[in-house]
Every structure is written in structure tokens, then in C-alpha cells.
């Protein structure tokens, strides 16, 4: 758990000598709690206090990196149980599993790794490929690992309980820092050794949280701390319980032995592709950090990536639309023109209604720093001047054959000002609620 200023203060010398640059030890402690300064700024903290503080300020869920380069997976560092309390930090990695007994494994890996889809200007893609040693043949496993490495640029997970096979694969791809899956009660010593030798992150698999905690303790003592944990739950109810308990212990109890990202396998507990996708969706919302899927198709990947984007959006920084003119339903030069703000939810609700209205439309989005219509207006970020500027900036007088623009009903007061700013335009006042735009157009647009 992150420490409060008062908790940190207890460890400080309490002499208020000001050498840290702050007037008192307490104000220094407050800044430390906000991570606005470093402990090193105080020359007088004792070593004992230092190590206590460091242990206590360890992130409740350790940050773990799988892979190298641009497409590495970074997970963990989560500090809350509910996204509205702050935000979820590192989006869960979505990974596809291929097996070394499958002749099409490389092709499947390639297809999934090459997949990407764009949404609200964000490029979303799958984060990795898990390679399973289903054949029990070490050479086959190592070869597939090498082939997948050559064919893709995403992070890898190596899955085998056989330490000889794991070693063979690590010899081929160890430099890419794959996740070693997994150390179990039976092979922990050897797997920990491999993780150390190749400096790779290690997953531990245990039946029940106690077994998992014992294994992470053992690994941490041996110096392997980049750990990912698998509590061996595969269904809806058991995995929700386990993942909730792990996150709760880590965050509320600072329980270090379970303070690691969790890996899940929704395909193993599922009866159908829909079922796998729903279980994965649940894991996105409730506390998985790496989700290994057994099926890939764009029609499933796209909604899952969207679910992840939604859940991991920072509630304090809503997704903003880029300012511009958005075409809805193939509009022409004489089609409807509406204007709104760049708060994504405002945009989505009005865009959705326009698309369903039967009236192809142009939607002009003004940059209001992510504020909704009324808030932006109240904050002076959505006014006649700004709208007029956007109309000109996006060359609407040139591209449209008419000069009519529909204002959101909530800012009807802007009509007069906008008439002054755009003297040859007709300013229409639309409904207050997006839902009513269809009826409005039926009655008012000709």
C-alpha cells in the first residue's frame, strides 16, 4: 500500500532542519507521499528507516515486464480495486496460445501477432504469443519458439512443465525475455534457476493461494522477483474469487507474496468461443494482468480489445476525440451539419443517434479539452468564437453546399453570438438530449 504522509513522517528525524528544501519534516513527508520528491533529499534518514520505507512503499502489485522492445508487455503496479478510486494502470496483456503439436502453429501466431485495429485514434493489437509444449518433445518446442520469434514481433510466453524443454527453448529465445510458465511445487528449483540464468520473468502455478504464496516466497528468496502468478482457477466463480482475493490481499493488506500480476486461461474453462470471450471479459474487469486465449478471430479480438480500452481508461482523463469533421452515414455536401464537443461520451451519444437517424450527417467536433457540452460552455471552452473558428479551420464553407449548423440545445444561448461570428450562416438550435436528434431532424431539416 502506498504510504500516507503521516505514516512516512514517523520514519523521519523530526528535526525540521530544512535541508531537504521543505520547511518541516512533515511537509517533506507529504510531498514524498505524492511522489513529488525523493527520500534521498533528506540526508538524515537512518538506514533502518530507509529500508522500512522502501519495503512499505513497494508497489502493492509488482511491475513485471515480459518481452523486449516496443511490444513488450508491462503489467502490474496496480494500486486500486475499483477503477473509479483512481485508475487501472497497465492494461492486461492479451495473448494467443499455440501448441507445438499443431502444424499450423506458426501461421496462427503470425496472423494473431499481425492483427491490429484502430479505435478513437488508438491502435490496438494483441500483445503476445504463448507457446505450449503439448508434444512433450523438447526439440519441437524449441523449434516452434524460434520460429514464432522469427515470424512475430510480440512478447512470448513459454509453456512447459519440463525443465529440459524449457531450457532448450530459452537457448533459442531467452534473449527476448519471454515469460517462463511455470514453476510448480514439483519443478520450482530448476525453473527458478532458469529464470535467473536467462534473466526472464517467471510464472508460478499453485493450487490455492497458499501454494502460490509459498512458491513466490521461494523464488523471491532465490532472487527471482519478476513473477506472475497463476492460482489454477479456470472457471467463472473460482477465478473471480481467487483474483479478487489476490488483489485485495495485495492492496489492502500489502501481502507481498501475492503482490504480483496474475495470468489467466479463459479458454480452458470455456464451452464455446463466446464463453471464452466472456470469461476473458470478466478477467479484464476483475484483475487479470495477462490473459491467454485459445482462439483468435478479429470478430472476437476487436470487442475484447475495446473492453480493455474501456476498463483501463483513466476516469480522470476521459478519452478525447480529435477535433475535426466526422462523417456519419456517408454524408454529401448538402447533408446535416451538427457541432459538439470532444468529450468521447458526448461524441458517441450524438454520433450514435445521428447514424440511426436516417440522416447522413457531418459532425463537427471542437476541442474542448474533453469536457461535455455544458461543462465546456461553463468553463468558457465551448463558445461561439471557438465554433466559428472550427467551421473555418475545417473548411466547411468550401465543402458544404449550405450554410446551416445545428447547435446542441444545451447551449442555445450561443445562438446570438454565433450569428455575429458567422454572419451568413443560419444557426439552428437542436434538442438538449442526443436521443431526440432524429425527431428533431425530421421536423426541422429540409
Amino acid at each position, binding site marked *: 500500500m502506498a504510504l500516507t504522509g503521516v505514516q512516512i513522517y514517523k520514519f523521519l528525524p523530526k528535526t525540521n532542519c530544512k535541508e531537504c528544501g521543505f520547511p518541516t519534516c512533515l511537509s517533506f513527508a507529504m510531498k514524498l507521499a505524492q511522489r513529488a520528491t525523493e527520500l534521498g533529499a533528506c540526508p538524515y534518514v537512518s538506514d533502518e528507516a530507509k529500508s522500512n520505507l522502501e519495503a512499505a512503499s513497494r508497489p502493492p502489485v509488482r511491475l513485471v515486464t515480459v518481452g523486449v522492445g516496443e511490444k513488450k508487455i508491462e503489467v502490474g503496479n496496480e494500486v486500486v480495486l475499483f477503477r473509479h478510486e483512481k485508475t487501472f494502470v497497465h492494461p492486461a496483456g492479451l495473448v494467443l496460445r499455440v501448441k507445438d503439436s499443431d502444424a499450423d502453429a506458426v501461421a496462427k501466431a503470425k496472423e494473431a501477432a499481425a492483427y491490429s485495429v484502430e479505435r478513437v485514434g488508438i491502435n490496438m493489437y494483441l500483445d503476445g504469443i504463448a507457446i505450449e509444449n503439448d508434444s512433450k518433445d523438447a526439440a519441437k518446442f524449441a523449434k516452434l519458439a524460434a520460429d514464432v520469434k522469427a515470424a512475430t514481433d510480440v512478447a512470448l510466453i513459454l509453456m512447459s512443465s519440463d525443465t529440459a524443454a524449457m531450457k532448450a527453448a530459452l537457448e533459442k529465445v531467452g534473449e527476448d525475455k519471454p515469460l517462463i510458465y511455470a514453476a510448480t511445487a514439483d519443478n520450482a528449483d530448476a525453473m527458478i534457476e532458469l529464470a535467473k540464468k536467462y534473466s526472464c520473468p517467471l510464472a508460478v502455478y499453485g493450487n490455492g493461494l497458499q501454494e502460490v504464496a509459498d512458491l513466490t516466497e521461494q523464488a523471491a528468496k532465490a532472487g527471482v522477483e519478476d513473477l506472475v502468478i497463476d492460482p489454477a482457477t479456470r472457471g467463472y466463480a473460482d477465478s473471480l474469487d481467487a483474483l479478487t482475493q489476490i488483489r485485495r490481499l495485495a492492496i489492502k493488506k500489502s501481502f507481498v507474496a501475492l503482490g504480483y500480476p496474475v495470468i489467466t486461461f479463459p479458454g480452458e474453462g470455456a464451452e464455446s468461443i463466446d464463453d471464452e470471450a466472456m470469461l476473458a471479459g470478466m478477467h479484464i474487469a476483475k484483475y487479470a494482468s495477462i490473459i491467454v486465449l485459445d482462439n483468435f478471430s478479429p470478430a472476437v479480438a476487436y470487442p475484447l480489445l475495446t473492453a480493455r480500452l*474501456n476498463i483501463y481508461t483513466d476516469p480522470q482523463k476521459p478519452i478525447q476525440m480529435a477535433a475535426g469533421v466526422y462523417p456519419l452515414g456517408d454524408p454529401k455536401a448538402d447533408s446535416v451539419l451538427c457541432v459538439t464537443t470532444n468529450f468521447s461520451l458526448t461524441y458517441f451519444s450524438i454520433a450514435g443517434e445521428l447514424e440511426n437517424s436516417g440522416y447522413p450527417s457531418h459532425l463537427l467536433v471542437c476541442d474542448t479539452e474533453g469536457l461535455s457540452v455544458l461543462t465546456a460552455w461553463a468553463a468558457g471552452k465551448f463558445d461561439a468564437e471557438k465554433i466559428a473558428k472550427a467551421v473555418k479551420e475545417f473548411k466547411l464553407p468550401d465543402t458544404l453546399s449550405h450554410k446551416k449548423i445545428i447547435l446542441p440545445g444545451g447551449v442555445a444561448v450561443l445562438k446570438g453570438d454565433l450569428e455575429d461570428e458567422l454572419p451568413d450562416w443560419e444557426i439552428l438550435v437542436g434538442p438538449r438530449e442526443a436521443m431526440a436528434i432524429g425527431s428533431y431532424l425530421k421536423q426541422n431539416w429540409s
Partner: protein
Amino acid sequence: MPSVEIPLEKWTGQVHQVTLGAGGRKTVTVGGENTLPYLHFDGTIPNKTAVAIEIQDIAPADWSPTLLKAWGDVVNDPATWAKKAVEYGAEAILLNLKSAHPDEGNTGIAEAKAVTDKILSAVDVPLIVIGTGVADKDNEILPAVSEAARGQRIAIGNCEEKNYRTVVAVCIADGHIAIPSSPVDLNLAKQLNILLTDAGLPIDAILMDPTTGALGYGLEYTYSVMERLRMAGLGGDKLTAMPIINNVGEDAWKQKEAKVAQGLPESWGDMETRGIIWEEQTAISLMQAGSNLVVLRHPQSVAKVGAAITKLMG
């Protein structure tokens, strides 16, 4: 070795229990839990999340081809449609009085009453009736619906600040449940619940609808508002502890992802699968945030979401 002791979360409040259906109809009870969704180790969850199917009083003109294909001809007759929906696993029917909307035919009291009667006699599961969203129109037709269903404890929506008086009055008179709707706004949700109960509606006659957007279209807002409402309710605030209804189908299927057949990027994949998954993902996410009753449109989502609920109930 550190020993694992699971910290339990004990709440002082609980979600109100609301029962739909009476007067010889089947009943469905939702709510009653004293824990966050499906956390059986923390508390008790006496009722599972219920699944309703939405039907309309006229053949939908603007529904996704995926939905129209799945339902076929039954959409032309609401009673046949309702029966089919029950066969597909609907525990309740949500009847959308689409034809009463001023833009969709502007039908009146007589039609609203007739179709309510028809559905009530065609199926024996509980009924939810949703008006047009146009306050004046709803004030005209919803009382007729209420009267037609007197004593059968249907749920009637949506009511907002503008029209709650009418809806509350008929719900009290005829023994029904009201559905206040308060998109994305925690305070508004509570405010509406206060208005409803102050007007005399019993606290177990409210199902609240904070839904604001499907997957990709504001899901995160609905999700967090629901979690906050639920935590406030479990924390002991009786005026936020109403069971939650989410009209998932309507929100999911109106999006381009579920509806548009052509001219989309290849990376969106097969249209039918995508639409169904879009609805299922919206449902499972909102269930994690506290949904007590999900309303769906596609028979396959009904089956799959239903199966997931069964598994979540342990």
C-alpha cells in the same frame, strides 16, 4: 512462510429485493445480496442476475440484420415473438412500445393497452414495459398499460424527473414497479429514487437503470457509476440500494459494430459474431459492476450470458 488469510469485506447494507410478477404469473426476484457481484465468500447472494429479452410492438425498422435473421418472422407479431423469446430462455419480456413514438406511428392509448393485454395472455413470465422516452406521450400511454396489467406486478419505465409523477401514481395504484433512468449520474440516480419514494412508491418497487452506453460507447462510465452506486448501497444508503436493470441489447445493437454490414475494416471480422460478442461483452462487464437484470436481444447471447450467470452463481 507467510500464511494467507483472506480479508473479508463485510457490508452493513444490502440491495433491496424486488419481485416482478404477481396475480398468477410466474415471478422473478432480483437483488437481496449483501456483497459485491458474485463474491459468495464475502456474503450472501439470494438471487441470480435475471435475463430478459426485448421485443417491440411493431416489426423493428432499424434493427441489425443479424437480429432480424435470428428472429425471422416472429417479429411481425408481438405475441408470437414473446412466446419464442420465452422458449429461448427469457425469464421476463421487455416490451418496447416503439409504435407509440411520435416518429414511429404515434399510436395511442388503445394500441398500448391492446398489445399489453396480448403479451400478458401470450406468456406467463413477468413483463417490463418501456415507453417512448417522450415524456408527454409516455404520460398518455403508460397509465393505460398499467391499468391493463393491474395486479400483475409489471415493471414500467422509463421515468425521469419530467414524468415520474405519472409513472409513480399508476405504479402505486396498480401494484407495479417503476424504472427510473439516470444515465451516468450517481447523484441524479439517488435524487430520482428520493423523488419516487417521497411520492409514496415502496422501496421494493424500484428497479433503477443507470445504463449509458455499450462497449466502446461509454461502457466505462456505466461500469463505474454502477460500482459506485452499489458500494454506496451496500454501505448502508438505502436510497441507492435498488437493484439495477441494464438494457444491454438496445445499447449494444444500435452501434455500428453490431449493425452495419458493409464498408467496414477487415480487422472488425465477421459481422454476426462481432455483434453477438459485442452484446455479450457489454453484459458480462456490467454484471461485474452489479447488474441484477440484463435485457438482451439476440437468442445466442441469451443462452451464453445465461450459462455464464449460472456458473457465477457457483
